[in-house]
């Protein structure tokens, strides 16, 4: 595939997509703006035709892998099918043109969807209240830990300065704890993938504000001691935080609320099939147990006795941790999640956990059969699992990164690599419930072929990929000789 020029290289002075903007106005129409506050030169934006723009960005789109094109087994990312119907519904004119500050009298349709979505999420998680406000998983985490902090502060319990985090956790967990003003203490994970309960007991104390964990964990296994963990943290006066990154594994099967969690965030762009959009937008609603209800972020949707809907905001919920965005979060993403929830219904919701787990366990067994090494062979896979290529790296000099890059040549997106950090040379693989058996089998065939190549032509594998728009990129040059904007 050829190098695509930058949009700026297509620019010619005086060219414009004239039909896309209103006509120029006479300068006297702008006389109210003082000259010293006026821009002296027009911004150097590209001067291109409508067709040039359409062709340029359509061509760029073809340089992406996407769920609509390829199997995308990224662990902890839940790359499932994104229903097209959800996109169309969220882009109905009545939704798209609604101003976020439109009065409640002109917002009943939108508010009814949000109110119902809150209820659905409450039900599937077993929590007592839900706010849809956080705009991504990391902001949901922020809201959750800020609520933990608000809870302790409201009780005058201000000696709690630490958040405990298992060492396998996502990087956002420790970063979030720090953003909320806490110190982080990591808790070791045992050889079987479960938290080291003895170490946890020692780490807990009057300084413990809470524990953040994912279940199933990022080791791809269900944390079997969850009730003992909850008891330990609660007895120390801390609260238990559920990172919903892996909620897809248990949707409809187990509820975080029933496991003893006090606060959770959900990634609707994972579990509720809203698009990842090349890195966002997401949506990270939070759910809480009874004792954290007063602190939920605003605004939320409420319902009056007469059935009409209204906003719940800080004027009525003064204990709230407040607003996390200018308005109410990523509303359009929430509408897509609402569509998905209505589309699945109760039965469909239960199937998500079941079939994502079936797919992962099947894929794991098949991959083991062709010579891959499971990190936790004695354990059931959840909706994802870990392979380690430590042996290939040691004996053949072929790393997990090399295998990941070679997969691209087989038209398979690489799994998550080198995460969690505690398993060397690893892949975290999550197939999701929406991939067919044939798609899983193709991935197994590709992996078998690559393992064979690693034995016979290791140097070739180390130079992969060969079929992509670019070969391996020089990341060191990118960081040392920073080039972040185009210069004509």
């Amino acid at each position, binding site marked *: 595939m050829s190098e695509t020029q930058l949009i700026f290289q297509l620019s010619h002075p005086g060219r414009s*997509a*004239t039909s896309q903007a*209103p006509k*120029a106005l006479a300068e006297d129409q702008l006389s109210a703006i*003082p000259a010293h506050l006026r*821009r002296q030169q*027009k911004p150097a934006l*590209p*001067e291109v035709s*409508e067709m040039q*723009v359409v062709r340029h*960005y359509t061509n760029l789109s073809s340089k*992406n892998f*996407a769920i*609509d094109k390829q199997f995308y087994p990224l662990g902890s990312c839940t790359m499932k099918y994104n*229903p097209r119907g959800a996109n169309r519904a969220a882009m109905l*004119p*009545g*939704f*798209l043109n*609604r*101003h976020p*500050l439109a009065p409640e009298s002109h917002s009943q349709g939108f508010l009814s969807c949000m109110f119902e979505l809150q209820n659905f999420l409450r*039900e599937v998680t077993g929590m007592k209240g839900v706010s849809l406000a956080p705009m*991504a*998983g*990391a902001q949901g985490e922020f809201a959750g830990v800020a609520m933990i902090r608000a809870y302790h502060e409201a009780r005058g319990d201000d000696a709690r300065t630490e958040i405990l985090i298992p060492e396998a956790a*996502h990087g956002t967990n*420790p970063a979030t*704890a720090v*953003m909320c003003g806490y110190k*982080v203490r990591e808790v070791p994970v045992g050889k079987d993938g479960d938290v080291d309960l003895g170490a946890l007991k020692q780490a807990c104390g009057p300084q413990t504000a809470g524990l953040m964990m994912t279940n199933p964990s990022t080791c791809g296994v*269900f944390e079997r001691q969850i009730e003992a963990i909850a008891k330990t943290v609660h007895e120390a006066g801390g609260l238990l935080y559920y990172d919903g990154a892996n909620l897809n594994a*248990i949707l*409809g099967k*187990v509820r975080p609320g*029933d496991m003893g969690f006090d606060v959770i965030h959900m990634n609707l762009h994972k579990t509720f099939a809203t*698009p990842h959009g*090349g*890195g*966002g937008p997401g949506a990270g609603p939070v759910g809480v147990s009874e004792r954290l209800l007063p602190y939920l972020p605003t605004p939320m949707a409420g319902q009056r006795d007469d059935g009409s809907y209204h906003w719940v905001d*800080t004027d009525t919920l003064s204990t709230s941790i407040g607003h*996390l965005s*200018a308005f109410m979060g*990523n509303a*359009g993403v929430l509408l897509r999640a*609402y569509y998905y929830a209505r589309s699945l*219904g109760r039965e469909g919701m239960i199937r998500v956990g079941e079939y994502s*787990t079936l797919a992962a366990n*099947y894929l794991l067994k098949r991959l083991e059969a062709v010579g891959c090494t499971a990190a936790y062979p004695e354990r059931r896979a959840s909706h994802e699992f870990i392979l380690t290529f430590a042996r290939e790296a040691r004996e053949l000099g072929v790393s997990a990164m090399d295998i990941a890059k070679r997969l691209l040549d087989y038209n398979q997106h690489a799994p998550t690599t080198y*995460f969690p950090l505690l398993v060397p040379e690893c892949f975290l693989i999550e197939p999701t419930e929406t991939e*067919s058996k044939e798609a899983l089998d193709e991935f197994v065939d590709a992996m078998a072929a690559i393992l064979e190549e690693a034995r016979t032509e290791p140097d070739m594998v180390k130079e992969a990929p060969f079929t*992509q*728009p670019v070969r*391996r*990129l*020089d990341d060191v040059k990118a*960081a040392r000789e*920073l*080039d972040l904007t185009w210069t004509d």
Partner: protein
Amino acid sequence: MPYIPHTPDDVRAMLDAIGADSIEDLFDEIPAHLKAAGKLDALPEGLSEMDVTRLMNERAAQDAGVVSFIGAGAYQHHIPAAVWEIATRGEFYTAYTPYQAEASQGTLQVIYEFQTLMSRLTAMDVSNASVYDGASGLAEAVLMSLRANRKSKSRKVLVPAALNPRYTAATQAIVENQDVALETVPFCQQSGQTLVEALAHHEGEDYAALVISQPNFFGSLEEVNALTDWAHANGMLVIAVVNPTALALLTPPGEWGADGADIVVGEGQPLGVPLSSGGPYFGFMCCKQKHVRQMPGRIIGRTVDMEGKQGFTLTLQAREQHIRRSKATSNICTNQGLAMTAATIYTSLLGPEGLTNVAAHCHANTQALAAKLTALDGVERAFSAPTFHEVVLTLPKPAGEVLAALAEKDVLGGVSLAKDYNMDNAILVNATEVHSEGDLDLFAAALKEVLA
């Protein structure tokens, strides 16, 4: 089964390969008493695409059919058809974060072009790949200023009262957890501006930064050059909060005062993103080159591949949570990729001429609207400062009452300033290029009836 492809034969074959009798067996590591069986009864039955679409059509239609003059941080603009037709192509819509650079060159090049566009629009050196929205972007900018201002030991930042109060509230909610204090600078009751005189008593005090909003929440244009120079003379960084449409006409923050703003943030929604009840939008964030390592969020760099061919990749990742964990610049893990892609296409389609024309029509239409409304008895401009595309009007009756009566006529006549500013009779109104002469007359006629 919606979205699940497996036939009974597939399921049997998969279970056989696993060596399990049933799907339920796969959950044997979960304590039985924790299982959710029977606990989801409040969820409705699933619906077909046709039925959910019908349901959501009815809901959407309930909220349609208004003429709106609400701005206050989110603005109606014409969005060319090509923008979302391309942005929702599956190749953009269903791609993940571009961690596998070789298989994500489309997304990566779009972000690099976006960074360039935003840097040029703001006249700053660099841009990131976007943050959640303008308000949370300001919170990130405040935290960044504490890291970037090496001359200051302060954990305080000066914030104008004339800043969008929703930005102040969100920033407060986010930064207070790190013991950062926002101190308010009052605005001039006559002009509706933040004056250097109001800052005089802070001279010699240690603050990490001064926030300057251009235009400010009232639509008023601030004397940004004087404010910027004052802040720099007092050892503070300048955080600019700007509207991207306005930047086509107004001095870009990189050229404010003698040295320009240090960090620039703003709401990107006006660049091709629909109102959509408040999101997804995107916050843009630019800064001077020397502060780039303190900037949060994803950043894309241009480099070469092993054959010397141009390519794009995530860079400066040592700032980010997936590498640095508790020492990262922020916990942010996404950008608003799709909205940012739409903005890149929008800005390219409009070009310098088109964006300038949009901005000019917004300004002229708002001037025309203000003239029509202030021709009514008892309706006056609240402030004397020049404005961009919003203006505060005082009414002879309480704002809440008037707005409710207008809404009954399906005219959304702006937002009330009663709650945030104790200006009980004041409304903030906005017009953009989408408003026709007829729309402006409709508003004036409706207001006349309501005030009669």
